[in-house]
């Protein structure tokens, strides 16, 4: 068996494959062979490097040389120069902003596209072993606070860091803590909001499953700052693994005396218990969450009073999201300036996003605030699946909006997303391609809101129902142009008059699609057509008799027997039977099935 001294890694991501990376691999293999290096140099195709804009990529191990925009004909030089003579091919190296070549990829800007602060330990330590967390500076921030800082100093540091709530609202965390600290009461509480409810969002779950101690440590720090001795984690019962890991972590922290009485020999005592949510979306809203913890119906109440003044059991309560807490120990350990040097003017630090939808690298990422949507989707996310065209990205879940092409270069931060008609939300990012119908997308989110509205206030309970009905009508081809203006005015009323954040933001998916995809709405109501071919009532499948070879593949796959035809002669679809499932369209190898 060979003992390879060098490995050439060729990017096999979709983008690089489209620009001939397979040919590059073939050529490299041939060159390795020609130079008699077969036993020493191995050529391997890898997954996406997440740097698609500069693809195709070839990386050399062990020296970490990073070649960009490689062409198949460059293979010869890479092997004869680099592999044989040990000299990097200068003109293929990645160049930094000063046009200087960078040989070791560890120093490349591109590695700065993703900076992991909240996710620093996820996928790195064993979440069920407190010692591994401690080895990574765990509980050092709590120790520092208790032994070297006054609560006021800690709050000041958090304020200075510019940390804002990562659950979506973006309220300054330090300020929230300060208000609770100022409130006078015999008992105060720290609550961690782990009621992650946006469709397609799984940031908080991943943090709790991958690094539960970071949240526990930060809750204790918050307790110290605000004068609270009790912490509660409100977590969905449908996150069993997160619950189990959190319980294990709390038990271990207690055994070490990091939770309990007189922590680190100080006079500060703090302990944490769990409260389970049944999975209602509205319980992510802090007042509804508190009511649910009290055993009452999960319904929001009017603010003020804010929970920081009167929350759980009427006592001052600080409610923060999982990701917000996970960032806190880093701010204390490394100082506010470390954190506020990252990000934009008004949004500091990094944000975790869950990439989902029609994107190649579905996954969890963490980027500095101010990163553009283009970098997130096309570089880190590896672009759109199947080489299709990007259409929109939905941020902020059911409370957010759909952003188009024209927003791709907008730096992501709280304020930019709001002025673009969406919001940060908790960090779900759902990417859509040309096959997605924006009216159906708006309808999907409305259906979600409809299910999740608690029903307490009329605008949300009935208004959203009416919105949904109009959208449903449009997708069935029965809408009129008046419906579009009706949608708009109804949206405005719901936004202005709903009691809590759920209703105040639920029309956003409708408004943003109306703004950004008005033509598509018009096509539905005027021409009774769905340009994306998604609205089943509006499409017809047809077989082109010229192209059809009579292979019978569609006939055999049609679930309702709507297709007829003899072997080797053109087939037909009976549209009175067809349920428009699209199987024939997907199966046809000759492009003979068309959608109209």
């Amino acid at each position: 068996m060979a003992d390879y001294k060098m490995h050439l890694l060729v990017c096999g991501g979709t983008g690089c494959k489209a620009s001939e990376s397979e040919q590059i691999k073939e050529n490299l293999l041939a060159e390795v062979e020609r130079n008699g290096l077969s036993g020493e140099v191995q050529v391997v195709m890898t997954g996406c490097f997440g740097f698609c804009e500069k693809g195709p990529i070839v990386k050399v191990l062990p020296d970490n040389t990073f070649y960009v925009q490689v062409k198949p004909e460059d293979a010869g030089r890479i092997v004869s120069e680099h592999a044989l003579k040990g000299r990097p091919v200068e003109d293929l190296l990645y160049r930094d902003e000063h046009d200087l070549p960078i040989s070791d990829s560890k120093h490349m800007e591109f590695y700065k596209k993703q900076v992991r602060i909240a996710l620093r330990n996820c996928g790195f330590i064993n979440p069920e072993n407190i010692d591994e967390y401690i080895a990574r500076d765990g509980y050092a921030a709590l120790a520092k606070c208790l032994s070297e800082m006054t609560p006021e100093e800690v709050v000041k540091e958090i304020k200075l860091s510019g940390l804002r709530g990562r659950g979506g609202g973006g309220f300054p965390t330090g300020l929230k803590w300060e208000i609770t600290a100022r409130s006078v009461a015999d008992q105060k509480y720290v609550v961690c909001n782990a009621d992650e409810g946006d469709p397609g969002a799984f940031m908080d779950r991943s943090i709790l499953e991958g690094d539960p101690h970071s949240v526990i440590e930060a809750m204790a720090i918050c307790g110290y700052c605000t004068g609270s001795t009790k912490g509660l984690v409100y977590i969905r019962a449908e996150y069993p693994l997160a619950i189990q890991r959190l319980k294990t972590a709390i038990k271990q922290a207690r055994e070490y005396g990091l939770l309990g009485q007189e922590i680190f020999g100080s006079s500060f005592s703090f302990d944490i218990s769990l409260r389970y949510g049944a999975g209602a979306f509205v319980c992510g809203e802090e007042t509804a969450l508190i009511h649910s913890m009290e055993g009452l119906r999960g319904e929001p109440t009017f603010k003020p009073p804010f929970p920081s003044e009167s929350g759980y059991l009427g006592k001052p309560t600080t409610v923060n999201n999982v990701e917000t807490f996970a960032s806190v120990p880093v701010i204390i350990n490394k100082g506010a300036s470390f954190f506020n040097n990252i990000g934009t003017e008004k949004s500091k630090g990094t944000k975790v996003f869950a990439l989902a939808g029609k994107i190649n690298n579905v996954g969890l990422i963490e980027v500095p605030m101010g990163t553009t949507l283009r970098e997130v989707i096309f570089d880190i996310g590896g672009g759109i699946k199947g080489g299709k065209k990007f259409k929109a990205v939905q941020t902020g879940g059911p409370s957010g909006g759909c952003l188009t092409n024209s927003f791709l270069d907008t730096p992501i931060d709280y304020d930019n997303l709001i002025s673009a008609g969406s919001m940060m939300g908790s960090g779900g990012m759902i990417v859509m391609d040309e096959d997605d119908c924006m009216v159906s997308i708006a309808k999907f989110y409305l259906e979600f809101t409809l299910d999740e509205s608690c029903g307490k206030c009329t605008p949300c309970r009935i208004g959203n129902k009416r919105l949904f009905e109009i959208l449903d009508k449009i997708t069935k081809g029965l809408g009129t142009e008046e419906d579009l203006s009706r949608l708009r005015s109804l949206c405005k009323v719901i936004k202005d008059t709903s009691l809590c954040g759920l209703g105040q933001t639920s029309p956003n998916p409708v408004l943003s699609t109306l703004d950004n995809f008005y033509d598509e709405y018009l096509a539905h109501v005027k021409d009774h057509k769905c340009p994306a071919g998604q609205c089943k009532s509006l499409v017809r499948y047809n077989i082109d008799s010229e192209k059809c070879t009579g292979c019978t593949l569609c006939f055999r796959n049609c679930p309702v027997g709507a297709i007829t035809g003899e072997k080797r002669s053109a087939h037909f679809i009976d549209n009175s039977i067809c349920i428009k499932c699209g199987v024939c369209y997907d199966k046809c190898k000759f492009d003979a099935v068309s959608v109209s």
Partner: protein
Amino acid sequence: MEKIKSLDDLKKLREGMQAKIKLRESGNNAENIVRVKVSMSTCGIASGAKEIMNFMMDEMERQAIEAVVTQTGCMGYCYAEPTIEVTVPGHDPIVFGDVDKVRASEIIEKYIIHNELVEGILPVNYRSIDI
């Protein structure tokens, strides 16, 4: 378990742990110890990470390869679960995606034993803050 009563206690424990991890990574028989981390969050487990972890443990024992197989949280590569990170002494860690038993055997046979890479490596494209 001994309670941690002061900052000094914590520092001692941290240093002890770091030394232990270092020893595990580059200790006496640094030549032989392989580290395997299996991404075990809900999504990983749903795609079969638990079986892969058991399989890796069994295989390492069967083939008498000195290795530490541990679980970890989400690495972020949801599109390629189950994912594992393999650190062979003297080399940077390498992440492999879409690991089933066939690929796991291939990784042991080719990469761990013979330092030959296999297809399906996931290049790490992020930086964690230095601790």
